[in-house]
């Protein structure tokens, strides 16, 4: 097969896994990503040739990333708009895509596109191989036992529905309890609420402290012997709160319950380790992890795979079909009915490679630095309320309100300064009810954001306050 592979754009196929093809052993993409020490741009001792896809970097996590160089890899951010460069502070809604991911999607469609797991001709075989490689990269990234833990799905919303009804219907009975938190996105709230209605089970909320963290004191725990499922986000999409999933998993397992983790916000911003944390089901989307839209992942612990039943039926997910009945294929195929988002699933593997090569821990440190800086500067603004915990207990998201300034007006004014933020309830109405506001303005940081972006935000808020006569 290899001899038939087109070689054009090959560097985009293999980079960064085969970075040793480059004269100095450094892939240009990695160089641009700031994998090279900032103060030693030509450091020749850095080796960037992990033997396995998604292998660990040889750089210490203390070496800071260079966000200016990272930004150069994002075509959408390199444009000049009529009023200057875009300041993109809405990555929590969806992250921008690095060139390597864009090229990967194009490469698949230009060079070997075919349906997956169907045709045993050359293109089909290549697609199957690339999809399996993507599963492998993702499994490694999540700390999962094997690529067979990874099922591709459309995104976090569908994935959580598949777990809620695919596991919940057969394991939750009348009088049982499903525990969620008040800070869940609707995608990890409404499916559990609906499951509880359907099964006549009780939906319980994990108590939250005033600063937007889960109350972990034993007496506040909502978990009882009747608890079957604890569904929690690893990181809040509004408050940025990072939840102690390992401890929650332990408490769930103590009563024989499972833990379902919505990792949509957490995977791009910090290391994930499903095995050490004891997570039964973890779900995330590709598009927040610098990957394509339309693809997401369910990561299922191997000993739970048999228990997860399909809720979407069709091609590929069966082992035998007769007029009377059907039998399912093994997990993950049984969760992958119909044609997969093939191109997107392959390019998601590339996005994970990209993040892994920079180092998700280093990205977390970079973003934390921006977050702490932004929180400090925003707190100087009169009438400012930042919701949620201190910077040390959260990822790179902050939601706020300014007295006398409606989030909708603020967003319109920030947009006039090319500062792109999100406003509204961020699909977390239960949380906003708790906060006592109908809407907030949300700022979120990612790999490509710089301190200049924080400066632009502060300046744009000042502009909005002037326009709306607060100054």
């Amino acid at each position, binding site marked *: 097969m290899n001899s038939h592979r087109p070689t054009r754009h090959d560097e985009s196929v293999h980079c960064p896994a085969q970075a040793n093809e480059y004269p100095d052993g450094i892939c240009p993409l990695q160089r641009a990503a700031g994998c090279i020490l900032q103060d030693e741009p030509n450091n020749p001792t850095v080796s960037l040739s992990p033997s396995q896809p998604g292998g660990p970097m040889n750089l210490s996590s203390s070496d800071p990333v260079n966000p200016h160089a990272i930004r150069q890899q994002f075509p959408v951010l390199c444009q000049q708009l009529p009023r200057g460069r875009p300041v993109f502070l809405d990555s929590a809604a969806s992250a921008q895509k690095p060139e390597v991911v864009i090229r990967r999607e194009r490469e698949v469609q230009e060079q070997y596109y075919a349906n997956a797991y169907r045709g045993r001709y050359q293109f089909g075989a290549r697609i199957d191989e690339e999809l399996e490689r993507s599963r492998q990269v993702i499994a490694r990234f999540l700390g999962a036992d094997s690529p067979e833990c990874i099922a591709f799905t459309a995104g976090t919303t569908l994935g959580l529905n598949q777990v809620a009804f695919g596991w919940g219907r057969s394991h939750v009975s009348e009088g049982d309890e499903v525990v969620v938190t008040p800070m869940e996105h609707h995608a990890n709230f409404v499916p559990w609420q609906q499951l509880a209605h359907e099964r006549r089970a009780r939906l319980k909320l994990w108590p939250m402290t005033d600063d937007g963290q889960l109350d972990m004191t034993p007496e506040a725990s909502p978990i009882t012997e009747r608890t079957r499922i604890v569904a929690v986000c690893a990181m809040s999409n509004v408050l940025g709160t990072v939840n102690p999933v390992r401890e929650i998993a332990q408490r769930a397992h103590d009563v024989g319950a499972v833990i379902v983790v919505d990792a949509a916000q957490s995977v791009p911003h910090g290391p994930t380790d499903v095995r050490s944390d004891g997570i039964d089901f973890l779900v995330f989307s590709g598009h927040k992890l610098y990957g394509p839209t339309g693809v997401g992942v369910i990561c299922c612990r191997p000993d739970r795979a048999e228990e997860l039943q399909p809720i979407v039926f069709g091609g590929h997910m069966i082992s035998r079909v007769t007029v009377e009945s059907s039998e399912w294929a093994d997990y993950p195929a049984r969760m992958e009915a119909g044609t997969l988002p093939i191109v997107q699933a392959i390019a998601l593997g590339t996005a994970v490679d990209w993040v892994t090569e920079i180092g998700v821990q280093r990205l977390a440190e970079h973003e934390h630095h921006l977050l702490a800086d932004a929180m400090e500067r925003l707190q100087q603004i009169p009438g400012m309320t930042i919701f949620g915990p201190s910077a040390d207990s959260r990822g790179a998201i902050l939601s706020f309100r300014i007295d006398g300034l409606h989030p*909708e007006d603020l967003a319109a004014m920030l947009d006039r300064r090319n500062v792109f933020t999100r*406003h509204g309830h961020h699909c977390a109405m239960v949380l906003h009810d708790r906060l006592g506001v109908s809407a907030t303005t949300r700022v979120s940081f990612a790999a490509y954001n710089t301190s200049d972006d924080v400066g632009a935000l502060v300046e744009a808020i000042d502009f909005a306050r002037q326009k709306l006569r607060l100054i």
Partner: protein
Amino acid sequence: MAQAIPMTLDELLEEFDELQDWEERCDLLIDLGFELPPFPEEFRTDEHLVRGCQSLVWLVTNLVHQDGVDRVEILADSDAMIVRGLIAVLLAVFSGRTPQEILSTDVEKLFDRMGLNQHLSSTRRNGLHGMVRRIREFASAHAA
């Protein structure tokens, strides 16, 4: 019951026509928002909330008999300033008109001319149309 309107429709259209830039028009909306007459607190209830708006919008419609003609009087308010500006536009277009006049007004054409349909965010456009629907329903119920 009758309230001062920040600007008549003709004045408003003239102002909008003079401003070619959407940002200047947006500033004008904010100015209009600040000039909106005070909203009676007793009407700030769920009953008068307009659905479909991301910001809170309260809208009250009344029929006032004046010089032998029934005219629709509108009171409205929002917690967002640009929406208050849009309310000022709606007051200029609709307030003090007869139900028949309201029903025969091609409001979309006016919004197009002001650039509102092109430049407002989809949620704001939905909110604006929610208010228009409310007013037209009232006019419809009272049209002779």
